[in-house]
């Protein structure tokens, strides 16, 4: 009461004073708690929250590294990645995220809300908005499942990508005009989830030449995720060819792009990311010009002869370095590198187009006809069943038993009779009866050294030369071929039986009844084999590369390399080295020699002489006789007796030119399926390859005919 009037308060009950004090104390306590909590949050652990704040604002978008360049032996670029403006879709940033849900009938859930956006985008980039057949494969842990539905193009692409990599960006279209990118960028709120990133596509300098060898690219499958190293979902990896074989070097290291976003995921700007490292450069032993000439010559011959396709291989017989290899029919590899359109898929899958994706140089196989005779010659000479000077009297036909009826005898091609022939002249003129005889002897008089349960010296030497075994070429997907033998008959017959009775790998399919008499299928069946009974006739067929002999052009090139180089089986290879983007050599490849065949040099010399005389005055004299280099070559004309009937003969040609002071050695193998005579369909292709190799031009030689223009 003594203080200034302003400060006086009315009397207060002690009870109220206590209660007010309690509330005041509570307020103090609460303020203290809040104050210290705030101190703890903002001052003591502030840095942690700063980091978290950065995290929520910056999303790291993977930026695919451009794949490395593939160059030829001179360093000229063959395949390279070029940046093109593209339209992508981020499936998680769409108005309604697209998700993969295994419980659904169609596991890729495409919310209806995105439909309007997809249509708007489709109209902008010129895609159809009408639903069409759309298939996509989901790689579940229990295995891949294919789903078929009806979707417009944009939705189909999104579904296809989400099925394989749920979080990866979907490339909807590459090579769009930049003004379309700009248009979308300016209206980004109208196109949520649509990205206008540049993507890399492969550019192929050689066009369709060597397409199968370079191989295809596609989004990684879950299976490949386990096989390839340093890859993640959504990566584009090599699916075949060199792209697959050398993927680990070519793929480069993906970078990231920091994108600042707000809570709605809307773009706010760029943040620091990690740099992209372009893939390493793969240097090949390939000769671009030779590749182009070979591919063109082969294509011309196939079309001139009405063949189904073919392949060629040109390589160094000493080292196995491949100069060129090609397959026909081929395709424009640019069509496969970006997301494949339904139109091109149709092209690849149409049987009428003869499977252009098949690399016939390594994956195509068939009886190689008379080119096989060098193996028979080696087996007979090394097996000691035939001497170098031993003469065979050819009267035009070979009969298994004397005085057998003519129907049981086999005649030379063209029905000619050559009289007295030895090993050299038999190779020179490709005398069939001579080699039938050797096949007969090699089967009926097994030699102790070569006797084994699965055939005799012929089978042993075929295997030694590499028939039925992988060549080890650095292009994945090669066929091993096969050599006719009692064992191979048993194996084929087993499969025939499984097929007919719907067991083993054929389980679940319909049974295929067959009429069998005396161990031979007369009608019906699966046409895998007609018997398991091995007879001398089968060995006689094999001796001339017929019947159940299956050889790839690459294997044939390896066989002729061994004859050219004195018995070394080389490993064919394309890759020379891997160079870093700055040009340093990181890794070198040496195909090297896989094994050495011990063949008496005099026998080899005789075979070589036979091959030389075949060019100068024998089977391919018309085509290559005039070629101004020492060509050693052998034609082959394989009759294709499928179980459905006979097809047009397939043409083969294998030749080599030894090293000289001015040029490297070369071996060439050419195969024209259903092309007819080897000398007419295959040898001209080889001649043009040799012409390019030695003289820098294919020469004026008419393909499909053994005449110069």
């Amino acid at each position, binding site marked *: 009461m003594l203080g200034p009037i302003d400060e006086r308060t009315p009397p207060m009950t002690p009870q109220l004073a206590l209660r007010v004090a309690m509330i005041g104390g509570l307020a103090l306590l609460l*303020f203290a708690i809040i104050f210290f909590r705030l101190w703890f949050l903002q001052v003591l652990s502030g840095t942690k929250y700063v980091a978290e704040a950065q995290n929520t604002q910056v999303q790291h978008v993977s930026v695919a590294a451009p794949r490395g360049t593939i160059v030829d032996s001179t360093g000229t670029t063959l395949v390279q990645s070029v940046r093109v403006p593209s339209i992508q879709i981020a499936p998680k940033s769409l108005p309604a995220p697209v998700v993969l849900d295994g419980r659904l009938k169609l596991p890729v859930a495409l919310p209806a809300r995105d439909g309007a956006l997809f249509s708007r985008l489709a109209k902008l980039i010129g895609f159809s908005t009408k639903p069409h057949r759309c298939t996509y494969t989901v790689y579940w842990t229990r295995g891949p499942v294919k789903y078929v539905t009806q979707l417009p193009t944009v939705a189909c692409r999104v579904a296809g990508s989400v099925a394989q990599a749920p979080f990866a960006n979907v490339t909807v279209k590459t090579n769009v005009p930049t003004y379309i990118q700009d248009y979308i960028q300016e209206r980004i709120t109208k196109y949520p989830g649509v990205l206008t990133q540049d993507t890399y596509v492969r550019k192929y300098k050689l066009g369709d030449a060597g397409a199968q060898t370079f191989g295809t690219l596609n989004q990684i499958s879950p299976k490949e995720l386990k096989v390839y190293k340093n890859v993640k979902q959504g990566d584009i990896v090599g699916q075949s060819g060199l792209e697959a074989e050398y993927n680990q070097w070519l793929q480069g290291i993906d970078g990231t792009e920091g994108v600042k976003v707000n809570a709605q995921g809307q773009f706010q700007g760029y943040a620091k990311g990690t740099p992209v490292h372009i893939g390493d450069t793969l240097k090949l032993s390939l000769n671009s010009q030779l590749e182009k000439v070979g591919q063109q010559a082969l294509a011309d011959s196939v079309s001139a002869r009405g063949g189904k396709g073919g392949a060629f291989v040109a390589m160094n017989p000493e080292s196995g370095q491949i100069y060129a290899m090609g397959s026909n029919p081929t395709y424009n590899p640019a069509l496969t590198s970006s997301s494949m359109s339904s139109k091109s898929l149709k092209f690849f899958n149409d049987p009428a187009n003869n499977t252009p994706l098949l690399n016939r140089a390594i994956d195509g196989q068939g009886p190689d006809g008379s080119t096989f005779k060098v193996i028979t010659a080696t087996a007979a000479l090394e097996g000691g069943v035939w001497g170098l000077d031993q003469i065979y009297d050819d009267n035009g036909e070979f009969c298994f038993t004397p005085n057998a009826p003519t129907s049981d005898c086999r005649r030379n091609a063209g029905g000619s009779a050559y009289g007295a022939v030895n090993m050299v002249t038999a190779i020179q003129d490709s005398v069939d009866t001579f080699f039938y005889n050797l096949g007969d002897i090699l089967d009926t008089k097994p030699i102790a050294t070569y006797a084994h349960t699965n055939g005799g010296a012929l089978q042993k030497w075929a295997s030694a030369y590499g028939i039925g075994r992988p060549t080890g070429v650095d292009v994945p997907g090669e066929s091993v071929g096969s050599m006719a033998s009692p064992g191979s008959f048993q194996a084929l017959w087993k499969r025939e039986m499984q097929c007919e009775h719907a067991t083993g790998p054929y389980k679940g399919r319909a049974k295929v009844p067959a009429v069998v008499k005396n161990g031979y299928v007369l009608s019906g069946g699966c046409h895998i084999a007609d018997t398991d009974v091995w007879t001398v006739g089968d060995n006689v067929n094999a001796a001339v590369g017929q019947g159940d002999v299956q050889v790839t052009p690459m294997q044939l090139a390896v066989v002729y390399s061994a004859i050219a180089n004195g018995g070394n089986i080389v490993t064919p290879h394309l890759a020379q080295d891997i160079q870093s983007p700055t040009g340093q050599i990181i890794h070198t490849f040496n195909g090297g020699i896989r094994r050495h065949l011990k063949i008496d040099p005099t026998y080899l010399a005789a075979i070589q002489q036979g091959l030389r005389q075949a060019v100068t005055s024998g089977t391919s004299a018309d085509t290559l006789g005039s070629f101004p280099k020492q060509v050693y070559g052998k034609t082959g004309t394989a009759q294709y007796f499928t179980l459905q009937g006979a097809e047009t003969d397939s043409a083969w040609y294998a030749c080599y030119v030894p090293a000289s002071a001015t040029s490297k050695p070369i071996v060439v193998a050419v195969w024209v399926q259903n092309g007819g005579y080897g000398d007419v369909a295959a040898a001209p292709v080889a001649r043009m390859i040799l012409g390019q190799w030695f003289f820098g031009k294919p020469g004026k030689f008419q393909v499909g005919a053994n005449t110069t223009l």
Partner: protein
Amino acid sequence: MSVTPIQITEEPKGGGTTGHLLRIDPLLLLAGVGLSGCSVLVLHALNLQPYTGEYKRQAIFAALGVLLSLVISRFDYSRLREFRYITYGLMILLNLAVFAFAAPSGAGVQAQRRIPLPGFTFQSSAFGMLLLILALSAFAVERSRRMSEHRTTARILLLALIPAMIVMRQSDLGDALIYVLIGVAVLFFLGTSWKHLTALAALAVVASVIVLTVAPAIGVNVLQSYQKQRLTTFISPPAHCIPAKDPSCYQLDEGLIALGSGQKTGTGPAKASQATGGFIPEADSDFIFAAMGEMYGFAGAAIVLALYALLIWRTLRIVTMAKNLYGTLIAGSILAMFMFQIFLTIGMNLGIMPVTGIPLPLMAYGGSSVLTTFIAIGLLQSIYVQARISSAGKARVLIV
């Protein structure tokens, strides 16, 4: 204290109309104006979608509020005691009126809590709190002589519980709690015995156990699931929030990140990415403290806390100096309301209190809340002015 009749106060020496104005509590006014200033500052930095233009409206409401509080401070609050039935009835009516404007049922959990007026939607439950305070305090004063009776305690509490239930039907759990709290505060400052208060506390514990655990077990859901989630999330926050599943966990997380990243002095309004990037949910209202903490850091938060401390201190002081019981009860209830709103909301922003939709007084954007708070401040000023006039009178009497 006895019932104070309406007085015609004598002017103290040197007084006048201006003297009245001068006699208001300047610190209380400062706290109110300061907090409104902080609010407008933060909202100005947040002036982008979806908060565009809010700072202007907030400034207008704050100015209106200050004027309103000054006007109210000039009236004697004691007159309002007579209108206790009218104020209580009006409060019930306003809260019921909301249902007339309610969106059709099934329109979602965020039920209609507002009455649309031209240019302004009016949140009745906020204004209703003040009406309840005025009415309840008056009822309490009537029964102050029988305050030891059970019936008094029960009646006052019942009078608070009835509107609380109505507000709860509006799906506004936070405001319903404040209604109950006002009842308890009136009892507390009335001087209800500790025995009654302890019994009430025990009842509250039992009720919350039933609501949270027993009732759901037998299939009766008193609280909506999101309400329960809000109440429980802060006790055991999951390691990683899944926004779609648990929005309150996400809100808590984002609030903490924003506050924490403000550090000592803040990022400044321009670089407050969490607030301006839309990461902070309800950055203009429920989480405005977090937004402010990001922009101005510990320093800014300390200033805001100091202003709230000032507000509470001055209110507490007014509780002690009121000239009559009615004033004590009004000031005490307002104090309880302020403390509940401030500590619960800031605590929620700091991740130590459950997520509730209670606005932070004066800081949070919203006309109803700002006006209600300034009316409360006006009432406090009125109590202050009346107390000083009365004590000045008494002093003179004593001196004379």
